[in-house]
């Protein structure tokens, strides 16, 4: 009963005023907002870099930027999008939604939550500052293969290493918080198999983070030691082996790509049932499929290394293991399609993004299957075909899912409906832009254009021009998104607490905008 008194007391607190509100906040909604804005800023920063790359590639020949700077741009673009845009966006959504979805008053460890966010701006300030350093920013690609990133690296690599350490610590703290919240803070009656799928996918993602972020920290630590302390982990002259770098990196790297897609699966699994007005088809099979994807993601990393000189058995094992992932992934895709089948569907912006996700992510999955064929990968590896593959899974995959989630929950956060027409314009511009950018990359990749080069042979000119035009359409249409969000925060027609037509989930039982403190008394879940 004492708890009740305490809870009621805190209920009267609103947010503190001014900047310190954001600096010291331990409120999951504030921290979610911070994460989302940070991620959006990084999305635009990384996007500017991508546009510089595409501007240079608009025509063959070198016209705008020097090759050295081009390499810095590809590297920074990749790192910023992965660690600065996509991952923090998912953590932001988790912060906002998980406590509301499981019926908890806040995250389990609110103060740690504040830390895990505020480390990020420092990490990225450090990373971006390398652009102004002597010798330039890291230029060895987001995969930072040794010895390019050790023996041949610019001096700024040390700052890069510390930035990665900080991001890693931030992600690990975020993951610990999420696991503790989901396992310990559920409202009475909220059993594991009643958890919304967004919660489930995040739980599994958090375990992946705990398992692989330390390995990433380990590999950059080894680099640091090779560079400054004379060890030879990756230096053949001293008895090390550069191929070892690739093994450790991809042991982290492959689960990492699933870290960027599992929460997206969760978001889409929330949205499609709402706008199809049906229950999600195959809830438990979704949970099992997600878990098996997470498990399999640990035994396929060598598919990034088919060309390093593996024995036949190795090629075969990793080829089949990789193809196996397509099975649980297929289960998910069929479940989404089955959910829509004979539903009374409407096509509001979140649903448009979610459907585009299903279609375009599947294209990315298929090109992944093509890459998984080891003998074929000798042709595709390090060409634009790989670039097409991972951009299809990451942009209309992860990024579209994030946008879908933002549209879906924005009325809950702000209390206003967003302008629907504007949302649809944003969707169609993005959709056209994405496909114009990345679809031609399949063709130029198959024709043999290598990735990460600032100049190319004449026969690739037309498709590159199309891709560059698409990139600018996609890039600038994100400004529509920015304006839309600001407009919705400022005003708009008031949202009901349900927001949509009979959506499922605890978050729709609280008023819009969600009050600063929710579920101070746990709800009863039937």
């Amino acid at each position, binding site marked *: 009963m004492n708890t009740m008194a305490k809870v009621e007391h805190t209920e009267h607190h609103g947010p503190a005023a001014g900047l310190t509100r954001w600096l010291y906040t331990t409120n999951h909604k504030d921290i979610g907002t911070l994460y989302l804005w940070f991620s959006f800023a990084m999305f635009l920063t990384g996007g500017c870099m991508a546009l510089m790359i595409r501007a240079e590639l608009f025509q063959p020949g070198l016209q705008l930027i020097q090759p050295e700077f081009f390499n810095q741009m590809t590297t920074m673009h990749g790192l910023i999008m992965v660690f600065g845009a996509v991952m923090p966006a998912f953590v932001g959504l988790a912060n906002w939604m998980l406590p509301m979805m499981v019926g908890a008053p806040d995250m389990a460890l609110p103060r740690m939550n504040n830390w895990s966010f505020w480390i990020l701006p420092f990490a990225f300030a450090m990373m971006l500052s390398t652009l102004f350093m002597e010798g330039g920013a890291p230029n060895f690609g987001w995969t930072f293969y040794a010895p390019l990133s050790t023996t041949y690296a610019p001096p700024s690599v040390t700052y890069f290493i510390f930035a990665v350490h900080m991001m890693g610590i931030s992600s690990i703290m975020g993951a610990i918080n999420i696991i503790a919240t989901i396992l310990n803070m559920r409202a009475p009656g909220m059993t594991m198999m009643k958890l919304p799928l967004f919660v489930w996918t995040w739980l599994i993602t958090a375990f992946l983070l705990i398992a692989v972020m330390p390995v990433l920290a380990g590999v950059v630590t080894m680099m640091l030691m090779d560079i400054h302390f004379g060890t030879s982990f990756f230096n053949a002259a*001293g008895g090390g082996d550069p191929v070892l770098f690739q093994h450790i990196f991809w042991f982290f790297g492959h689960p990492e790509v699933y870290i960027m897609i599992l929460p997206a699966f969760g978001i889409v699994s929330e949205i499609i049932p709402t706008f199809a007005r049906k229950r999600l088809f195959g809830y438990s099979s979704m949970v099992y499929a997600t878990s098996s994807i997470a498990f399999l993601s640990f035994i396929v990393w060598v598919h990034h290394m088919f060309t390093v000189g593996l024995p036949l058995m190795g090629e075969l094992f990793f080829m089949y293991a990789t193809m196996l992932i397509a099975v649980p992934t297929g289960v998910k895709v069929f479940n989404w399609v089955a959910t829509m089948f004979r539903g009374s569907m409407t096509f509001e912006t979140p649903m448009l993004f979610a459907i585009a996700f299903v279609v375009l992510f599947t294209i990315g999955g298929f090109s992944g299957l093509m890459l998984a064929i080891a003998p074929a990968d000798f042709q595709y590896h390090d060409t634009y075909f790989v670039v097409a593959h991972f951009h299809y899974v990451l942009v209309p995959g992860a990024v579209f899912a994030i946008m879908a989630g933002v549209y879906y929950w924005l009325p809950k956060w702000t209390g206003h409906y967003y302008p629907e027409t504007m949302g649809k314009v944003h969707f169609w511009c993005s959709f056209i832009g994405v496909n114009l950018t990345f679809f031609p990359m399949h063709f130029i990749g198959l024709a043999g254009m290598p990735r990460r080069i600032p100049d190319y042979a004449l026969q690739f000119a037309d498709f590159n021009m199309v891709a560059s035009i698409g990139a600018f359409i996609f890039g600038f249409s994100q400004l529509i998104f920015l304006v839309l969000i600001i407009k919705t925060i400022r005003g708009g027609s008031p949202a009901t607490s349900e927001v949509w037509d009979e959506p499922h989930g605890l978050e729709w039982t609280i008023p819009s905008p969600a009050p600063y403190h929710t579920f101070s008394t746990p709800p009863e879940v039937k």
Partner: protein
Amino acid sequence: MKPVKSAQQKNRSMVRTLILSCVLMFGFGFALVPLYDVFCRITGLNGKVLNTGPNAPTGSDKNRTIRVQMIAVNNESMPWEFRALSPMVTVYPGESKQAAYLAHNPTSEKMVAQAIPSVSPSEAAQYLHKVNCFCFDRQPLDSLETREMPLLFVIDPELPTYISTITLSYTLFDITSTKAAESDLLSKSAQPNSTGRNTL
């Protein structure tokens, strides 16, 4: 008060477990280094060569011959002249074969080098036994000195029959500026010193 406290305790013990898992996974990342070496050595993958020394296989198989191609590569800025005395030798499996590489230091400084072997196809690596190899040691050369560096090897008769050519490649690294090379630079005699890295 009680329920709140127990939730906090639950959180605390969970945080402890999760942090411990992180520490373990960090350690696992480092454990991959020796694991990888052991794995490569056992399987002979990645061209890593097993050096059995004296207990190399005996008894030769005169029914087939194996071509051993010997390649010399200078790493990056290594200025030495480095080549195999004879680029290809033909051996019977089980036969001990003596071969040699020539190295010449054309600079005006004393330098120290380390040769790193690699075998292709990688399946053959575990069947190539080096009884003695200049790659076991660091190689100091005075300015303008030339040395013939010996290599004694045996090919295991167990070598799969579909392999008829083995390429043995040595990459020569300049390690003059490393800690390990200090003693070589100081010593007057140009005798090679063991690096203790016989597994290479």
